[in-house]
Structures are given as structure tokens and as C-alpha cells.
């Protein structure tokens, strides 16, 4: 359990018990101790709990489970299990090049909640579309994939920097004028999933 979740749970438990006391015996606030108790459980603890809870919710939002909880994202989760090393996300996921429990967030760091205000509003729209609107048949990124997400790990890595293919375009990659995906173009490819074998962990 995350520290913020643990802190949130503890505070909520204490606050709810103390609030119960105030609700059942409002006359407690007649005394000085009762006033302090009411201030704690009706002001300090709820605000603290909501703050910690928000932090915990943001942390939960980074989890792969969270991203794949919407039906529309299921094929993208499945694409992480394709038994073919040419599939870039699958290769990263299966070889622990990204943490499996935060696989989506590791490569999409500025998506919806984690992006700017515009991205956050898009996230709200996604929830609306998920329940009420029409989900597009093909899901696309709003902006071209940023090389920053790749160079965050590969930049400076010997295998990357010494590669004869990378050296001539190294500055273009850093400037984002050439996309990594121009060559590494087998990404999630969710439309071809019906014809591929899936990897099952522990089964060679």
C-alpha cells in the first residue's frame, strides 16, 4: 500500500470515529477540549485526508491496471503481451525495460492527468466519451510521440549512443525533428492482435 493511501486510510478512520462523537454528542463542544476536538475532526483531518487522498489517487493513476480499466484500452494492454520482439511496447514490457505496474505511464508521461491543463481537460472528455459519447474506432495520440520519452532512458546508454544508425541523426532525435518511431514503427498495432501469439509469463 502506498504511504499516501496508508496515511489517508488512517486519518479517515480516526476522523470518522471522532465525527461520530460530535454528531452523537454535540454538547461536547461546550468544553475547551470539545472545541479542539471539533476543529480537528471537522476541519484539520478532513482537509488533510482529502489532500493525501488526492495524492494517492494521482499515484494510482500511474498504474497499468488503472489505464487498462477502460474497455477501450484493453487491446493496448494485450499488445504488451505479443510474443514478438519486433513489437516495441511488448519488448519493453516483457523484458522489464519499463516497470510492469506502471508500463503505460513510463512511456506516456504527459497524458491526460499528467499533462498540462489542456491534457487534463482531454482526460475529463475521455471519461465523458467512455460513458456517454461515441468512442472513435481508432485511437490516436493528440500530438506526435515525443522522443523525450525514449531518450529519458536510452539517451546516454552505450548501446544507443554508439549505434552507427543513431549517430548521424542523434541531434535530430534530441530536437524531435526526426521521430524514433520513424524506424521503430511497430508499436501497439492493436488491429493485428487477432493474428499474433501472446506471451504467457513462466511458459517458454
Amino acid at each position, binding site marked *: 500500500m502506498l504511504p499516501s*493511501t496508508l496515511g489517508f486510510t488512517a486519518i*479517515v478512520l480516526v*476522523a470518522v470515529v471522532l465525527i461520530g462523537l460530535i454528531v452523537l454528542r*454535540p454538547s461536547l463542544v461546550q468544553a475547551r477540549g470539545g472545541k479542539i476536538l471539533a476543529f480537528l475532526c471537522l476541519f484539520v483531518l478532513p482537509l488533510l485526508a*482529502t489532500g493525501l487522498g488526492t495524492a494517492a489517487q494521482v499515484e494510482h493513476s500511474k498504474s497499468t491496471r488503472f489505464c487498462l480499466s477502460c474497455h477501450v484500452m484493453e487491446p493496448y494492454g494485450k499488445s504488451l503481451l505479443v510474443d514478438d520482439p519486433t513489437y516495441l511496447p511488448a519488448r519493453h514490457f516483457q523484458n522489464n525495460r519499463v516497470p510492469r505496474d506502471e508500463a503505460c505511464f513510463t512511456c506516456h508521461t504527459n497524458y491526460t492527468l499528467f499533462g498540462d491543463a489542456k491534457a487534463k481537460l482531454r482526460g475529463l472528455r475521455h471519461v465523458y466519451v467512455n460513458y456517454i459519447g461515441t468512442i472513435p474506432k481508432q485511437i490516436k495520440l493528440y500530438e506526435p510521440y515525443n522522443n523525450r520519452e525514449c531518450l529519458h532512458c536510452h539517451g546516454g546508454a552505450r548501446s544507443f549512443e554508439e549505434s552507427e544508425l543513431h549517430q548521424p541523426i542523434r541531434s535530430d532525435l534530441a530536437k524531435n525533428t526526426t521521430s524514433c518511431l520513424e524506424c521503430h514503427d511497430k508499436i501497439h498495432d492493436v488491429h493485428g492482435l487477432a493474428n499474433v501469439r501472446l506471451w504467457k509469463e513462466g511458459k517458454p
Partner: protein
Amino acid sequence: MTTVTPTLSRRLKLSGMLVGLGLIVEALTMFWPHPTAFLVFLGVGGLLVGVGVILYLISIATYSAAPSGS
């Protein structure tokens, strides 16, 4: 010592119930790993807590002691 008037008592109870309910809603969303959970956390739980806290602050800010009767 403060005399708890019926109005203050009623407001404290209502404030406590709103804050308590809000915290319970917030806690329940922790077990639901879905984007909607975050919205419910802030939109329902946060709102109930916020209204409860504001009501508590109003009730103590506008409190006036009951007449002593003598």
C-alpha cells in the same frame, strides 16, 4: 464555557454528517482503480467534505451564545 444552542447543535451535526459521508465516499473510491473513481473522489467526496467544512466554519463564526435567561 460555551452554551450549545439548538442551532449550533443542528449545524454541527449536519456538518459532521456531511464531512463523515464525504470521507467515506473518498475512502471507497480508493478500492476502485478507474478514472471515474478520481472524479467521484473529488466531485462527490471532496464536495461533501468541502460543504461540511464550510458549514462548520460558518456555524462557529456566526455563533452567538444563548441568552442566560436571568
